[in-house]
C-alpha cells in the first residue's frame, strides 16, 4: 500500500505519465450564475435558502451528510428557537453509553449536528452501488467553480454521446470530471413542492438547494461582507489622510 501511494504521488509530482489526467479536459465549463450572495454586500436570500433547506431535507439528506451544520445554525436563516427545537426533535440521534453501558436513541436537540444518513462508510457504499456520497457541508467551496459548478452539475445529466463507454451504474454528466458520476439524476421538475408556491421546475430547485449549500459552507459570509466594507473604508480613509500627511511632511525635502 505504502509503495503504491508513493508511486502515485511520484507520478503526480514528476509527471512520468498523465493519461488518466487527460479525461479532465472533456467536461463543460459551468457558466456563471447570478447569486444573491455575490457582490460587495451580497447576502443570502432567506426565503431561497429556506426552500433550499427543504430540498436538502426531502432529497439530498437521503444519502448526503451535513456534518458541520447543527440545527441551532438554522436560526440565522430566520427559523425561531421553537421551530428549531421542533425540527430537531423529529430526528433520532445516537447517544450513550448510559449507566448500563448501552448506546441509546434520543430525540434531537438544537445543539446536535445533522445526523448521518448511514451508520458508516461501508453501509453508505453498499446502498450506493459502491460510491460514497460526499458530505455536503463544504461542497460549494470544495469544487472548482464553487456554487456555479454545484448548480450546473445537478442539471447537467444527459444521454452519453455515441461511442462513450459508460460504466454500469454510473450516469453521464457533462460537468462532472470524467463525465461519469455515481449519483443518478435527482433534481427534475416538480420533485419538491414549496409551501410558498415558488416555482419548482428543476432549475429553480437546483438554484435554491445550491444557495442553501453555500450558506452551509460559508455561514459567516454576511458578517464577512459587512465587516469587510467597514474595515476597508476605514483603511481607505486612513490611506488618504496618511497620503496628505506624508506630502506635507516631505514638501520641503527635494527627493
Amino acid at each position, binding site marked *: 500500500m*505504502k509503495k503504491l*501511494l*508513493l508511486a*502515485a*504521488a*511520484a507520478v*503526480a*509530482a*514528476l*509527471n512520468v505519465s*498523465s493519461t*488518466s*489526467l*487527460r479525461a*479532465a479536459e472533456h467536461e463543460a465549463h459551468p457558466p456563471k450564475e447570478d447569486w444573491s450572495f455575490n457582490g*460587495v454586500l451580497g447576502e443570502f436570500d432567506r426565503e431561497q435558502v429556506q426552500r433550499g433547506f427543504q430540498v436538502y431535507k426531502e432529497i439530498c439528506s437521503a444519502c448526503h451528510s451535513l456534518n*458541520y451544520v447543527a440545527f441551532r*445554525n438554522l436560526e440565522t436563516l430566520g427559523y425561531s428557537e421553537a421551530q428549531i427545537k421542533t425540527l430537531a426533535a423529529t430526528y433520532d440521534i445516537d447517544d450513550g453509553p448510559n449507566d448500563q453501558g448501552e448506546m441509546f436513541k434520543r430525540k434531537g436537540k438544537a445543539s446536535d449536528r445533522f445526523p448521518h444518513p448511514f451508520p458508516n462508510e461501508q453501509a453508505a457504499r453498499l446502498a450506493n452501488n459502491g460510491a460514497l456520497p*460526499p458530505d455536503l*457541508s*463544504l461542497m460549494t*467551496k*470544495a*469544487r*472548482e467553480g*464553487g456554487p456555479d459548478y454545484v448548480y450546473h452539475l445537478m442539471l447537467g445529466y444527459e444521454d452519453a454521446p455515441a461511442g462513450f463507454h459508460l460504466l454500469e451504474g454510473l450516469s453521464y454528466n457533462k460537468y462532472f*470530471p470524467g463525465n461519469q458520476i455515481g449519483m443518478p439524476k435527482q433534481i427534475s421538475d416538480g420533485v419538491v413542492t414549496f409551501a410558498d408556491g415558488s416555482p419548482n421546475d428543476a432549475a429553480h430547485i437546483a438554484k435554491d438547494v445550491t444557495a442553501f449549500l453555500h450558506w452551509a*459552507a460559508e*455561514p*459567516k459570509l454576511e*458578517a*464577512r*461582507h459587512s*465587516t*469587510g*466594507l467597514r*474595515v*476597508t473604508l476605514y*483603511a*481607505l480613509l*486612513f*490611506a488618504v489622510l*496618511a*497620503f496628505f*500627511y*506624508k506630502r506635507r*511632511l*516631505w514638501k520641503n*525635502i*527635494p*527627493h
Partner: protein
Amino acid sequence: MNTEKSTIRKIYEWHEARLPIVSWLDHSLGTKYPVPRNLNYWWNFGSLAMFMLAVMIFSGIFLAMNYTPHVTMAFDSVERIMRDVNYGWLIRYMHANGASFFFIVVYIHILRGMYYGSYKAPREVLWWIGLLIYLAMMATGFLGYVLPWGQMSFWGATVITNLFSAIPLVGDSIVTLLWGGFSVDNPTLNRFFSLHYLLPFVIVGLVFLHIWALHVPGANNPLGIDAAPADKIPFFPYYVAKDVFGLAVFVVIYFAVVFWAPNLLGDPVNYVKANPLVTPAHIVPEWYYLPFYTILKAIPNKLLGVIAMFGSILIMFALPWLDTSRVRSASFRPVFRVFFWIFVANALMLGWCGAQLPEGLPVILGRIGAFWYFFHLVILLPMLGWLETPKPLPTSISQSVLKAAE
C-alpha cells in the same frame, strides 16, 4: 525657562543609563537612522514584510489556541474555528491569505534588491540573511499548509517530503525521520505543527540580523551610488510617514481579498478532508512555490530535478559575485535592465507552467524557462558586467535630485 527636569525625564534618564533601549530604537528606526532622501516606493516593501510577519504571528497564536494537531481532529477543528469561534473565520482567512501576501511582498522586496543591485558590496551579508529569511518562509509556509489536513495538505506533504528520498544512500532514512514513521500520518502532523510554531520566531531573529546588517552600510537607493551625509534624512518622521501611507494602501488590497475572495488563492480540494486512499487528480503546491516546482518538473530525473530546484534558490547566495558589474542600479545599465524584466517575465511563466497539467506546451515552456533561469544567472550576468557600457553615474544624490527638480 524652567531648567528643572521633570520627574518623567528623570525616570527616563535613570532607565536609559541602565538599558538604553529608547536610544537603541531611535538609532534603529528613529531620528538617528539616516536614510538616503531619494528612496522610491519600491523601498516600502521591507517594512510591509515586517508588518505581514507580525500579522502572521499574531493571527497564528490565536489559531493555535483553537487548533488540534491530530489527524482525526485537525480538519474538524479548522471548521470549528470557521463556524463557532468568535471571529475565527476572520483570523483564519487573515492567516491563510496573509501567507500569500507575505510572499507577494517579499518577492517584490527581493526583485527590488535585484533591480537596484542592493546585493552588491558592501551588502552581501545583508542579501544572504534575506535569502535565509526567504528559505525559512518557504519551510514555514509548507509546514503550515499541511496543518488543516485537507487533501492537498496531505498529498502536498507526501510529494514534497518524498523529494528528500532522491538523496542517495540516506534519502529514505531522512524521509522516515521527517514523517516520524513510514507514511505521512499523525506523527508527521504533530512535528509539522511544532515546527510551524517554531520557525516564525527563527524568522524574527533573522529579521533582527537583517536590519542590523542593513544599518552597517545603510540603505541602498535608486541611483545605487553611495549617499553622502548631506543626502540623507532621518528615518523618523520622513520614512515612517511614507511607510505608513504605503501600509494603508497595501492593507486595503489585502483586506479586499480577505473579505471578498478569501479562497481565491487556495485550492478547493483542500476543503476535502485528507484521505490517504484517494489521490487528487492534480497535486499542485501553493502559488508561491510554483516556479521552483516547474524547475523540479523540467528535469526528467528525480535527483537532478531536486538538485536543480534547491539549486535555483541556493545559487542566489552567489549573486553578488555572479553579477560582475560595479554599477548597482539598473537605471544606469540599459542592457541589464532589459534582461532583468525578461528574468521577471520568465519567473512568472515558470509559475504559470507549474500550475498546468504536465503535458504539451507547459512542459516545453517549463524546460525553456528553467534553462533561461540558470542561463541568466550563470552566463548572462557575468558577461553583461564585462560587455555592457553603463551610463555615466551622477556624482551625488543631490546633484541628481536637484537636476530633476529643475
